[in-house]
């Protein structure tokens, strides 16, 4: 495939700012430098080279350039030798590495210079002059020039610095409204003021049935039971709704619903994804941590601190310490290219993924865009990206996985003490089995080590590689995989056979290098010795100690520039970013920086997410992008009010949810109103509640719930945890199969396996989050594959069958009661269970007609139709009827 190259024109079209004016001074010193250059060479430069550079190149590649191209300035010795984004333009004495020579030869049309509009390719004799000049050592009297790469591309941030999101939230007076009686909360006053300003009025309130269904799905993700509906209907007190809300906020199902929202943002998944997909059998601990945090209403700032630097925080108890460690799983669960064979590339990719997850998830910023160049739109210099990258390069990310074929980057996990009291999966490795596996491992290791020694020896002796038996190479690959798997398994249990408490997470790297630092698995070092080109070297850590990151030109790991001290993005720092103490990664300071009350984004981004999850649309619609390419807030005063309120109330997510849900605005109906619609068709001003498609989990859980099958108790772990290390749906049957990943246990959807590229069908079809990316706003699609799932899948059939049984059993008719018995009561009951309302007359008619027609048609489809009993037909009719209810649009949407 054609290698994708960023053209120089594409690279950086940034104005060379006034900061470079000072460079003029440098010219005066030219004379001094010139004395060191022999006169003939100096003459050659002045006669043959300088005029061409001035004439052909300076327009785009000098400090005077209107638009500096490719970050390259050739108007000084320093500049031409340092080069631009692609590397040095001139390497004295080295024609091959001098990009300028390649460019003027016009060999590569992407980099050919000078451009056509500047006269095109230079005459052959001029090209020869340049070659001669480079060969003589590129003598160049021109002093001055850029001091650092970054300085050469000084970003003009003045304009984008004014972007609203980079300024602290402003406290605004709650506006006065005409219809003061309508408003119940400050939220209502902000919204109503907006409506009134346009001469609009909110629609009527939602009725009680609509409201209770809405708030159940929004807060706990399942529909209300009939008893709960009845209780709410009968409660005529003004606090009736608040009573329901408080009960839901305190139910364990709340964390399962809202924890899942955060898991979308945290790009939670149980495998490494990418090109070779390795299971993360311990990821579920992080999942459970998140659910528990939402249930406990852990303050959001604390929640973030624990996820980013939990291992560095003080803890009162062992349990708390263990939970802090588990929280850092946030940093470890991202997608990774486990097969990457360049350790430096790998380390930088992992760091990049972490930066991306945090910056989009917590800050609503796309900081990772600045990996290869200054951010094109937001005031984030590439330098500051690498300031943050240093923090993560200094972090030892522990995600486990078994080493072996296609996995060059297994790591240790974090082992937590049994006394922490964290649960473990119900799997044991009995001592006898252990002994047998240890023996097996020892045998395989022996064979493997002999094979490796043989290879090393052959290499040392310089024996031709052709002499090495390739089949042996394949055998070695198998051995490496088998030993990796066995090691991982043996390491996962203690001597008594119980599972160890293992977690994914992060630790600071050591400040000083030590022999044992880095390297996962027992054999990392052995293969590391194989050096470059060695195929099977284990996990080699490119950055074994606390370190600053070099600035990599164009993000190319082979082009390290000067090191950038670890730090943060200055536009969000308000001039007071915490200092990172020597010998630490800086994660603690990162957490501090993110959660500082002065950080303009963290609170806003989170309250906006909450708003989005309750109204279906954020005040800032682009929930993960508050940068200059994102949306403007529909009501910044309201957003800032909520953000400041969030901080004032101790970052309590439950309080902010409660406040929003109890507002009048949340309790509006979703009814249509022509006048409002004409003025505000997108409902930006919230004149009604938007109709929303349920999330995949709600659809599945609701089917389980109304069919009476939903198992509410939280399981420990899941199928991925039970399967242990290995591939996800790997080639040649390696690892967990698609079928295993789709085994449908009737637990809540949040507890189903969530491996990358292998999400269970029942969730994937209904727009589950893309779990390799931060997802603050899921898609909603209506595609035929969803319809086919509803009509023909075993899962839905089973739910429909069970619901049919439930409905029939609800109005028993005795042994001889046919299909007609209690038909209307049963239809009504089914409607209540599925839709939280009774059927209207038209629906009743349609349902009755269905029961009249279906059984005969069904019987026709059965072999030996004559002998089919009516009871079977009735059963099939109920299954089909209930499936139709599940399949309907109403089941999928909340009003």
């Amino acid at each position, binding site marked *: 495939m054609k290698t994708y190259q960023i053209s120089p024109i594409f690279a950086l079209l940034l104005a060379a700012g006034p900061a470079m004016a000072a460079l003029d001074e440098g010219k005066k010193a030219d004379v001094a430098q010139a004395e060191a250059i022999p006169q003939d060479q100096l003459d050659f430069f002045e006669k043959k080279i300088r005029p061409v550079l001035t004439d052909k190149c300076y327009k785009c590649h000098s400090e005077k350039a209107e638009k500096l191209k490719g970050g390259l300035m050739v108007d000084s010795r320093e500049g031409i030798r340092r080069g631009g984004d692609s590397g040095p333009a001139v390497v004295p004495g080295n024609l091959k590495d001098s990009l300028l020579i390649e460019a003027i030869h016009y060999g590569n049309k992407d980099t050919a210079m000078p451009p056509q509009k500047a006269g095109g390719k230079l005459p052959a004799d001029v090209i020869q002059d340049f070659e001669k000049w480079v060969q003589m050592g590129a003598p160049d009297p021109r002093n001055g020039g850029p001091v650092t790469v970054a300085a050469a591309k000084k970003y003009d941030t003045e304009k984008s610095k004014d972007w609203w999101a980079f300024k602290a939230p402003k406290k605004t007076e709650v506006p006065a409204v005409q219809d003061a009686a309508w408003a119940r909360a400050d939220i209502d006053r902000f919204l109503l003021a907006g409506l009134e300003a346009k001469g609009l009025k909110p629609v009527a309130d939602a009725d009680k049935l609509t409201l209770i269904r809405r708030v159940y799905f929004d807060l706990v993700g399942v529909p209300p039971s009939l008893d709960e509906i009845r209780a709410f209907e009968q409660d005529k007190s003004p606090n009736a709704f608040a009573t329901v809300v408080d009960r839901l906020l305190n139910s364990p199902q709340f964390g399962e619903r809202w924890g899942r929202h955060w898991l979308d943002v945290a790009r939670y998944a149980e495998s490494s994804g990418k090109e070779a997909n390795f299971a993360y059998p311990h990821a579920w601990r992080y999942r459970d941590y998140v659910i528990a945090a939402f249930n406990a209403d852990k303050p959001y700032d604390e929640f973030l601190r624990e996820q980013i630097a939990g291992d560095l925080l003080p803890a009162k108890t062992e349990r708390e310490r263990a939970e802090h460690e588990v929280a850092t799983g946030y940093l470890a669960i991202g997608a990774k290219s486990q097969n990457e064979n360049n350790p430096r590339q790998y380390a930088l990719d992992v760091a990049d993924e972490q930066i991306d997850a945090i910056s989009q998830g917590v800050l609503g910023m796309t900081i990772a865009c600045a990996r290869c160049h200054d951010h094109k739109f937001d005031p984030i210099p590439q330098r500051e990206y690498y300031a943050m990258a240093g923090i993560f390069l200094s972090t030892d990310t522990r995600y486990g996985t078994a080493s072996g074929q296609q996995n060059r980057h297994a790591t240790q996990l974090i082992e937590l003490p049994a006394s922490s009291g964290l649960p473990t999966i119900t799997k044991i490795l009995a001592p006898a089995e252990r002994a047998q596996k240890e023996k097996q491992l020892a045998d395989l290791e022996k064979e493997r080590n002999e094979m490796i020694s043989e290879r090393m020896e052959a290499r040392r002796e310089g024996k031709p590689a052709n002499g090495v038996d390739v089949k042996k190479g394949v055998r070695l690959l198998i051995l490496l995989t088998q030993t990796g798997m066995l090691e991982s398994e043996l390491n996962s249990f203690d001597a008594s056979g119980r599972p160890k408490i293992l977690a994914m997470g992060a630790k600071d790297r050591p400040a000083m290098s030590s022999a044992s630092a880095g390297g996962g698995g027992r054999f990392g070092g052995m293969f590391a010795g194989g050096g470059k080109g060695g195929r099977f070297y284990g996990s080699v850590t490119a950055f074994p100690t606390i370190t600053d990151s070099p600035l990599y030109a164009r993000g190319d790991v082979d082009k390290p520039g000067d090191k950038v001290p670890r730090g943060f993005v200055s536009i969000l720092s308000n001039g007071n970013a915490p200092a990172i103490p020597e010998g630490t990664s800086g994660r603690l300071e990162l957490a501090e920086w993110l959660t500082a009350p002065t950080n303009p984004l963290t609170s806003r981004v989170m309250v906006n997410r909450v708003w989005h999850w309750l109204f279906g649309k954020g005040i800032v619609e682009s929930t993960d992008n508050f940068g200059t390419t994102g949306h403007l807030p529909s009501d910044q005063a309201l957003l800032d009010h909520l953000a400041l309120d969030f901080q004032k109330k101790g970052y309590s997510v439950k309080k902010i949810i409660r406040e929003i849900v109890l507002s009048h605005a949340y309790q509006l109906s979703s009814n249509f109103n022509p006048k409002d619609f004409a003025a505000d068709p997108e409902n930006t001003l919230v004149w009604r509640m938007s109709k929303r498609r349920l999330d995949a989990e709600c659809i599945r859980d609701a089917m389980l719930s109304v069919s009476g099958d939903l198992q509410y108790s939280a399981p420990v772990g899941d199928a991925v945890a039970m399967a242990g290390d290995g591939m996800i749906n790997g080639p040649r049957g390696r690892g967990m199969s698609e079928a295993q990943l789709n085994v449908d246990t009737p637990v809540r959807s949040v507890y189903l396996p969530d491996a990358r590229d292998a999400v269970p*069908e029942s969730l994937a079809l209904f727009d589950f989050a893309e779990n390799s990316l931060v997802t603050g706003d899921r898609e909603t699609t209506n595609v035929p594959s969803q319809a086919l799932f509803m009509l023909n899948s075993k899962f839905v059939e089973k739910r429909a069958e069970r619901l049919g049984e439930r409905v029939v059993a609800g109005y028993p008719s005795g042994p001889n009661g046919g299909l007609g018995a209690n038909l209307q009561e049963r239809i009504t009951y089914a409607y209540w269970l599925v839709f939280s309302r009774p059927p209207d007359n038209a629906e009743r008619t*349609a349902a009755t007609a269905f029961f009249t027609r279906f059984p005969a048609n069904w019987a026709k489809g059965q072999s030996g139709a004559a002998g089919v009993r009516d009871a079977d037909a009735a059963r099939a009719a109920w299954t089909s009827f209930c499936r139709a209810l599940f399949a309907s649009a109403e089941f999928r949407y909340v009003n």
Partner: protein
Amino acid sequence: MNLSDHSCNQITPLFTRRDILKNFSCGFGWLAFAAIANKAAATTTPAGAIENPLAPKKPHFAARAKRVIFLTMRGGPSHVDTFDYKPQLIADTGKPGKRPGTQLLGSKWKFTQNGRSGLWISEAFPNVAKHADELCLVRSMQTDLPSHPQAFLKMHTGSFQFVRPSLGAWTLYGLGTENQNLPGFITLTPPSGFGGAQNYGSAFLPAIYQAQRIGQEGRPVAGAEVKNLDTSLSTQAQRNELALVQSLNQEKLVRDGVNPEVEGVIQSYELAFKMQSQMPQVMDISKESPATQKLYGIGDPATEDFGRKCLLARRCVEAGVRFVEITHGNWDQHFNLTNALAANAKAVDGPIAGLLTDLRLRGLLKDTLVVWAGEFGRTPHAQGGDGRDHNNKAFTVWDGGRRREGRLELRHHGRVRLRGGGKQSADQ
């Protein structure tokens, strides 16, 4: 299920632009489109009609190809033994390779010139060689890394570092598809590893653009099926059920007044119902004549499986599917090159030639792009006595479909070495 009952004039001006966009990224427009356009009117959308995300779109430049069949040769087929003639390498057999300690290995297959254009093709592909004048060989390919998973993913999405939409997804996004009752992008027996679903996924594009996967590598395509197509009910009984679903939906539509998303659900059921019958029809090759089946090598165990895939690919594109990918593995011949590559070539050569012939006979070849590609090539030096290692620095792909007659393309840096090692010696 009358299409015309759901023409777009049901959409009142009260819909917001946003609703409409949302709606149409949700599938409603499939039907709206179907009602106003037919297959032939592939390039235009009538003024005022609402854009359906899968509706055929007019490309920015006049296209010579209307559909793609992507023949994926997973594992990295040896270019020097198939489509990249290296006389010097044959002459230099046994001499030291660039990688220390290796010896060059000339191809054991004879190369001959074929067609009027005289393209050099190895005797491993005798049948494809007969189509030399319909091929365009690109012998100047290179990729970033000599490792299967990364190179395979890069071939499909352009990046192994980042999660990106696949080639087919982009094609569907850019061009839409012509048969709204079938998926616009179908992949037959892709590998589950090497990037897995990402190779045919839609990443950040709406899910509607991802491929319909049928089967999995390593299992015969004959037994592969599309999920959830089979109903346990008789057609009549299912119609009763569907009628009930749709009446519930209509009821909701009436209650809601305006709700494009409910319209979307209604359309999705109509489509699903059609797919239920159309998809098995497309997958059913039994109605193809014995001569056609034979043309594809169906009936011969060596070519049966890939022949079926090629025939299915033709049936799909003929039915209006925009992009069909079929995968054949495994071309990773580190050893046993002589036998394994011969077997691979035999498995695909006849069926591919059959596909090209059949497409031409049906007048489809002129605007169908048939691409043959692996993720990288193999080294000019031997690995073991009878194998070749990965080579990302040089490999060959070709496209058929008379884009350019019997042409040899040397794109990119255009460095072609007689020995086939690429720009640098490949030692991975």
